[in-house]
């Protein structure tokens, strides 16, 4: 049963990625302006003859299906092509940035779960108390404060009160330096996700706490901790898991801004720059990479359901 489910999911993943590749490829070329126009922008004019020569050099004069074919063949053989902007292999441009964003995203997710989940439980357990109101205010502000604004406020506060600015200017030498550098940016990004997790955990917990089996556990004399964390949270956490999976994908959006404000050279900020420059090989490869990550996270989330709730079967 498990194997057929896995095969089905893999097939679905493959089709999703194929569809994504076509959408990315076509959409990029529908956007007005191409890399050659942009290259000439820094020269302040466009020479039609020189433009044609460069388009030919970059293979942009070929029919779109031929360009797609070359890209897909390259992708399968891990040849991502060359960045139009830096004229360096796309792998060399993208490769070193992935771990940076991955660490930042992981730390943000860690923050959001670390704060979101327990605070959500506390808020539910202490429903309608001063603490609950305070936590609800915090979670609402997390949802309403844009992460770029929060990031800028953090920077301004640092400069005003400490005279130092926690931005990335050179590669951190130790793990500790790296952790310190990523701490504030990941908190800025994770704040929103933690607020969402907190609110969802609270409402989910409140729903579960009204169930008969919780009352049964209470009447049997189970401790508060056992009721809250062993019986209630385990069931309440299912919708939260879905949200964590979705938020992991959305984190990339938040990271684009935060990487820009904190000047962190990750893939998210790099992707935006590549889109603005119409650096097709970089954008296509990066979006495909993100698509793979999102699809894999969704797949893992589905698997996690079954682990968390034995009633869910893979055949479902």
């Amino acid at each position: 049963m498990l194997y057929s489910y896995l095969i089905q999911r893999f097939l679905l993943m493959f089709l999703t990625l194929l569809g994504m590749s076509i959408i990315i490829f076509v959409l990029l070329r529908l956007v007005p302006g191409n890399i050659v126009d942009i290259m000439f922008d820094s020269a302040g004019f466009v020479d039609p003859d020189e433009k044609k020569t460069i388009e030919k050099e970059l293979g942009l004069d070929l029919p779109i299906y031929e360009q797609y074919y070359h890209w897909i063949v390259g992708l399968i053989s891990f040849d991502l092509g060359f960045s139009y902007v830096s004229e360096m292999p796309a792998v060399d441009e993208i490769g070193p940035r992935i771990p940076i964003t991955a660490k930042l995203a992981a730390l943000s997710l860690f923050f959001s779960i670390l704060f979101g989940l327990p605070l959500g439980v506390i808020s539910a357990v202490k429903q309608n108390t001063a603490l609950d109101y305070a936590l609800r205010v915090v979670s609402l502000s997390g949802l309403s404060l844009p992460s770029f604004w929060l990031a800028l406020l953090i920077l301004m506060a640092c400069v005003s009160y400490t005279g130092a600015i926690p931005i990335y200017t050179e590669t951190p030498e130790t793990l500790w330096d790296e952790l310190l550098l990523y701490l504030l940016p990941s908190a800025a990004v994770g704040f929103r996700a933690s607020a969402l997790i907190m609110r969802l955990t609270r409402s989910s917990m409140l729903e579960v706490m009204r169930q008969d089996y919780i009352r049964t556990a209470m009447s049997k004399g189970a401790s508060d901790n056992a009721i809250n964390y062993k019986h209630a949270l385990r069931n309440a956490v299912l919708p939260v898991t879905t949200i964590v999976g979705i938020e992991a994908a959305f984190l990339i959006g938040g990271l684009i801004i935060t990487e820009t404000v904190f000047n962190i050279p990750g893939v998210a900020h790099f992707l935006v720059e590549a889109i603005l420059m119409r650096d097709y090989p970089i954008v296509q490869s990066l979006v495909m990479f993100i698509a793979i990550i999102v699809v894999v996270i969704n797949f893992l989330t589905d698997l996690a359901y079954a682990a968390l709730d034995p009633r869910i079967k893979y055949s479902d």
Partner: protein
Amino acid sequence: MRSNLFKALAVAVVSASCFGIISTAALAEKSGGILKFYHRGTPPSGSIHEEATSSTLVPYMSVFNNLVMFDQAKPVNSAETIVPDLAKSWAWGGDKTKVTFTLRKGVKFHDGKPFTAKDVVCTWNLILGNSKAKLRKNPRKSWYKNLASVEASGDYEVTFNLKRRQPAFLMLLASGYSPVYPCHVPPKKMRTKPIGTGPFKFVSLKQNEHVKFTKNKDYWKKGRPLLDGHEWTIIKSRSTRVLGFIAGKFDMSFAGDISIPIYKDLIKQAPHAICEKHATNVSTNLIVNQFKPPFDNGKIRKAMVLTIDRASFNKILGHGEFIMSGAMLPPPHGVWGMPPEVLKNVAGYHPDVAANRAEARKIMKSLGYGPDNRLKVKVATRNIAIYRDPAVLLIDHLKEIFIDGELDTVETSNWHAKVARKDYQVGLNLTGIGVDDPDAMFYENYACGSQRNYTGYCKEEMMKLFEKQSMMDNGPERMKLVYEIDKKLQEDAARPIIANNVRYNCFQPYVKGFKTQTNSLYNGWRFEDIYLDK
């Protein structure tokens, strides 16, 4: 006898004190240290000859040498401030139709290969399109329209043969945009790993991260450079980079990055910073597509010129610090611009805006426009604040003469492509010039056939005037003619200048030996005399 003795004593005292000052200055210079800058974005490439942006020129100028250059210690670039660089000396011949340079011996490129006259020939053949190797982009080809050929005579002498007389030709060669490239390095490599003879060697460029340069220990100028290198952290967010400067993370701001409002904020938070105000020679201007009716009619363009209220632009956007000018930047910042007493007589520059607009409305009415028949146009501009803000004001000013403008913001990367193919009616643009000389300005922006002549303005009589001034020696006669040309250009609405922008260049107090140049953003970044007095 006694008087002679006194004179000799006086000379000795003066000499000693002068020597003292010089030697104190020399002693005060400190070697070592890395100068840290922020950069506003990844430079499009490292090849100065292929770019027309300060993003490339400012960090990379120190990789190269020119034949001649503008004195880095003087704030105003002019013919009088041109000093030798790779050329030890030069001599004009043939009634200023050719100039011969005697080159320095013993100069080496960063890869150890010797510099010779062949490299000079190769560089200008590349620009003229006469070589097998080709530049991918060639933005300054128009500068050298009058250059017939470049010939080497032996290894250390080179002659530039001009088609006609052009005394200001040296001004072009002195720009940061005129470095000498090595013959043996192909243009593609110059874009990614540039090699020159300059005081600093290129180390690395990482997109969105940094550009690094290190000291050229074999630099031909003894005792220079003083720094061990200079490094640029690329920071796209302006708030972040300015905060970084305030926090002392950077020694200098990026060229032209500190606007007047930002300066006012910055100096409050970092009162120790030294900020030099400078004209960038970048103007905000109105562009009207002369191929698109009804703007092919000179009368309507004249009405548009008359409705511009430059004082309000200056007050709102420049906090009163912008410079009112025609195409050329006036003294003390520049050399060739019309002084206020001449400028006020140019149509549209008279301070009585109400009278100007009354005249403009009369013209519009004569063309059939009025309160009940308003002309609807799209005002195109680049979608960044320094373009968008004046465009909004411009729309307001056009309303006064029955023109209803609709703001058409164009994604920044498509802007030049759009205006170059004349795909606009009315627009607002910013224009920077590499060299403060009428030859560069007129031929680049107003001459028939120039790729950067976005409005398509082309008049045979003006071409004759451009050539006439170009053939003249510097002096009152040329100045008078340049004023006359500039006045005509403004009145013809060739590309009416709204204001010449002013910026601040900020650095930490321990940065010494640097002088901000006031009439170009593109010529003062050799960095060989800078030192850190920490």
